[in-house]
């Protein structure tokens, strides 16, 4: 009797392990249109009303916890932010001067420089779920294909790029954040040279990304500097278009050590958006809409 029970237990364990491994292999090797992916999307669709309801009901709990977390975080940031304000004030003066000059020159070449975000037909969505693991940096939003959302469309939040749409259902979508290990973004440092590279996440650190493959720095010429803004490069190479339109802020250079630049051609970037506490985002449903048109006078 005891032997039979032990044997039954072992058989069940082996069967469950085998089922997990079969699922893993079939899912990992399968295309997005495979039956397993389809079933997964169906389950997400079925559960989405429950998720939305739970998100609404539990929002006070999140808000209270967020308030405590933000308060402690804010206290620790006071000194750092004061220094930042001083630096940004001087940068603002320079930027205002440059903006004035830019406006004058644009008028001369009849440049329609209304490249605001409304050109990309943004759809505002509430975040209903966050993935809790360190490995999958995804969020779920309450807008889907019924609202014009499609796979690979860029998503912004807190005024900066936060990720791209990876899965779409009629009423909900899943967004892969820029800190997910499978997301890469062509990005540009807003310095005098406009150095361009590939922005990749540093797995395990949601507050840091690496801008790799930067041009080799020439002695005597400064490379990217601490605090400089990093934006999407929005390249276009033949029929290939970047997923992200040009000029969307991503973050700031947080570490530009000469060693790292010379040896690895990379700098560290901290995302501008607080990716762990997103509550509202915007999906750019028309990311390749022409935003700037120039005419030769």
């Amino acid at each position, binding site marked *: 009797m005891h032997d039979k029970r032990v044997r039954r237990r072992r058989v069940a364990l082996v069967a*469950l*392990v085998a089922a*997990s491994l079969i699922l893993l292999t079939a899912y990992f090797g399968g295309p997005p249109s495979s039956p397993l992916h389809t079933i997964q999307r169906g389950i*997400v669709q079925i559960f989405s009303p429950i998720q939305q309801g739970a*998100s609404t009901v539990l929002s006070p709990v999140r808000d209270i916890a967020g308030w405590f977390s933000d308060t402690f975080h804010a206290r620790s940031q006071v000194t750092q932010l004061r220094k930042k304000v001083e630096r940004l004030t001087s940068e603002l003066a320079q930027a205002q001067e440059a903006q004035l000059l830019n406006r004058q020159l644009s008028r001369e070449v009849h440049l329609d420089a209304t490249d605001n975000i409304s050109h990309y037909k943004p759809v505002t969505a509430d975040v209903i779920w966050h993935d809790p693991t360190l490995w999958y940096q995804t969020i779920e939003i309450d807008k889907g294909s019924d609202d014009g959302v499609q796979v690979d469309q860029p998503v912004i939040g807190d005024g900066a790029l936060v990720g791209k749409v990876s899965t779409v259902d009629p009423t909900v979508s*899943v967004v892969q954040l820029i800190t997910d290990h499978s997301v890469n973004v062509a990005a540009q440092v807003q310095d005098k040279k406009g150095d361009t590279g590939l922005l990749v996440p*540093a*797995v*395990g650190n949601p507050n840091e990304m*690496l801008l790799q493959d930067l041009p080799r720095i020439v002695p005597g010429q400064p490379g990217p500097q601490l605090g400089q803004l990093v934006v999407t490069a929005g390249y276009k190479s033949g029929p290939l278009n970047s997923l992200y339109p040009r000029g969307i802020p991503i973050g700031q250079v947080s570490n530009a050590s000469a060693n790292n630049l010379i040896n690895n051609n990379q700098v560290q970037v901290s995302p501008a958006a607080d990716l762990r506490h997103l509550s509202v985002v915007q999906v750019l449903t028309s990311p390749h809409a022409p935003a700037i048109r120039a005419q030769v006078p």
Partner: protein
Amino acid sequence: MSLRTNLILRLVLLALVAVVIQDAAISQITLFGVSADVMPLVVMSVGLLCGSMTGAVMGFGAGLLVDLLLVQTLGITSLLYLLIGYWSGRVRELRDPSHGLVPVAAGAAATAVAQVGMAMLQFLLGVNAPVSGLLVQQIFVTILINTLISLPVYAIVRRTLRGAVPEDPRRRRGRRYTTGGLSPLHQSGERFGPLPRSDLK
């Protein structure tokens, strides 16, 4: 309704509620940059309370639910959680975990298995991005936070399954020794009756 059906229903409900609360609220509350993960603790608690078979099946089901709802690679979380459920069930069956702090140690171990196992599987499947050294720190902090909340989570799971669990380890601890054979000094007063007053002088 039979005891078994009652237990299955409660386990399904427990898994659903745990996943919803985890992803709609707990995952957005960060402490030292990470958030708690109650799912390994729930699976561990079920294993400790119900045994290895129930723990393994619960782990597989809960893991599959997490993978399905969070659009993750199917099979990874279910594999890890079924090992946690089975292992914690075996701890109950072999070691008789009647001490009050067993869920704390088991919670730490379960979280370590979930976090380290997830990292190992991700490396096996291929990671395209560089890995920060901070990952180790984040895994450690998650284990620490989960260890702190493992006792309340265990208490909630035990309360949820009360009446449907085959045998509660805590009840077993308090149970009197009825089959005999242990030290005759144990409960001597009851075995031999009260001593006569004359013998006490």
